[in-house]
């Protein structure tokens, strides 16, 4: 993974309220190009064509949850090593570590603040780039 500009974000989230506010926050404030998927299955279908730089993945979703979606994404050639951030309401340190072990670069706690979401994503992306 080389450090490059963050442009395209795929956001996987089943909750419509969060979808709209996240899309608005990331597009309007962050200037990113955002694609929303309302389920893990949907993400698997759309990710290859959209070719995101980063995937934001909600942890708790019906049917296919965040970790399961991550595993499946890793099996696709286009997203085998795309950076992934989990979004979750659980923020205990031990859990964050577990999510990182699954291959996420970080965890953003929910509920997030729409004003600062884009900035948080940028900071994580910068840290991630420094490490590689």
């Amino acid at each position, binding site marked *: 993974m080389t450090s490059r500009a963050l442009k395209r974000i795929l956001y996987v989230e089943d909750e419509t309220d969060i979808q709209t*506010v996240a899309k608005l926050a990331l597009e309007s404030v962050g200037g990113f190009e955002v694609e929303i998927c309302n389920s893990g299955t949907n993400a698997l279908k759309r990710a290859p064509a959209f070719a995101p730089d980063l995937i934001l993945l909600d942890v708790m979703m019906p049917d296919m949850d965040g970790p399961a979606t991550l595993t499946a994404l890793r099996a696709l050639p286009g997203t085998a090593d795309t950076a992934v951030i989990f979004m979750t*309401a659980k923020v205990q340190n031990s859990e964050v570590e577990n999510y990182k072990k699954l291959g996420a670069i970080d965890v953003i706690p929910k509920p997030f603040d*729409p004003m600062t979401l884009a900035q948080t994503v940028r900071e994580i992306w910068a840290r991630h780039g420094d490490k590689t």
Partner: protein
Amino acid sequence: MATRPENFHEQLLALRQEYIRRLPEKLGEIEAEWADLLRANWDAEKLRTVHRRAHSLVGSGATFGFPSLSDSARTIEQVLKELTDQPRPDDGSIENRIDELLMELRKAVIQASRELPALSQEEDTDLDVLATPTSRTRMVYLVEGDEIPARDLALQLRDFGYEVRIFNTLKSLREALKFPPPNAIIMDILMPDGDGISALADISRDTAEGVPALVVTVLTDFEARLRAVRAGAGAYLLKPVDIGELVDKLDHLTGNKPADPFRVLVIDDSTVLTEYYALILRHAGMLTRTCQDPTQVMTALEDFNVDLILTDVYMPGCDGFELAAVLRQQDTYRSVPIVFLSTEMDLDKQLTALGTGADEFLTKPITPHHLISAVTSRATRARLLRELMLHDSLTGLLNHSTVKERLVKELAQAMRHHVPVSLAMIDIDHFKSINDRYGHLAGDRVIKSLARLLQQRLRQSDLIGRYGGEEFLILLYDTTGQKAQTLMDKLRGDFSELKHQASEELFRATFSCGIAAVSREIKAPALTDIADRALYQAKHNGRNQVLLVNA
């Protein structure tokens, strides 16, 4: 790609308001699912559903600026999480705990709802609904494949006091119907994942009491109509749907207007018999008064507002025929149905009875069932007739002469009790051009939809009448001029948003309104005159506005 910051704030605010608006519904879902979980004997799948709902509120609440909402939801989530895969504790402690937490959540939702822009009088009502869920909101499920027309229709129905949930697939509807049913379902036939009529047939088979349903479709063939009838649909409307007609049917199907019990006077010289008949009718939900002496009938009728008189034929002092004739000589009782009850089997005598003004002849002994159905059908028709006499046939509002008469009475009463009242006069703008351009039928629909809006949004105690062709008169009881202005202006705004159907297109209409706020002793004609002049001024100032004048 980045937009200007002020634009972002605006959009964020709009999303937030939309979120607040839907909060009561979300709360209702959690409460319904919780109740369902208790009924379903702690079903693991249902427990997960409630858990997921709470979880989703945790995630969205603080994002939209309501941390306390997230906090309450989080506690619920944690309690439920600990219960997953555990047997249900049998001491009732969990039920109490969750009920308490739901109450906290409800408070947080009410708190959030207060941030919506004030809706004048309705605001309190909305909060009342929240305070006692399931009580007064009428929930309609709108099942429609096309998202945009569905949203448009939902918005309009909300203006008429219906809460609307949209379903774009039959599958999602079936999911929702596992929970307490709505007050009505509006069903499109051609759904992306199946046939709407078959779905209705399934629903009416699967639910114990059935859900009132109506079909909205582009299909005009007889076969579709027949299938809809067989599936139990209460109405069949063609697209593009006329909102007035739709609301009419919905009101009817959801029993929006609670029926006033029938009032029956029972006359028979035998105390035992009058009591017996009265008892049967009371069991059928009617109000009764009894009278054993036909010469005392006028006293018995006082202040009773009678719907029907049930009388014996052979009585000492005055027989049934004479009694009918006496009553028919008085204007007030000219149209009240009189039903004779007697052992008389002679057809000629029965015909004589009918000739003197009786409406029906029932033979004793009579079964309770027969008595109830005869009284009900007569009284229903009589009420309908009276409605027609007092009400305007197009809108169902009080007609010109009735509203004028009632205005005099209610104004006098308000003065006596020193209650503030305001008189509003409404006139639809450019109504003649609407008729010329879109035709009289379209014009009638505009009048009807305004009438509906007034009926739905004003209170039972307010007097609403159709004063002239496109002119309406409203007496707002216990309402100051300021309040009346806020209220009427909100109605004005909402009415201007309604879309009316013409043969080829949709169009909008507006109205102007003049309000006379009563601040001194004044007679009805003078007050009406002041409201009329305020209306004229509002028209003169450019229409589509409300003008308040002190009288």
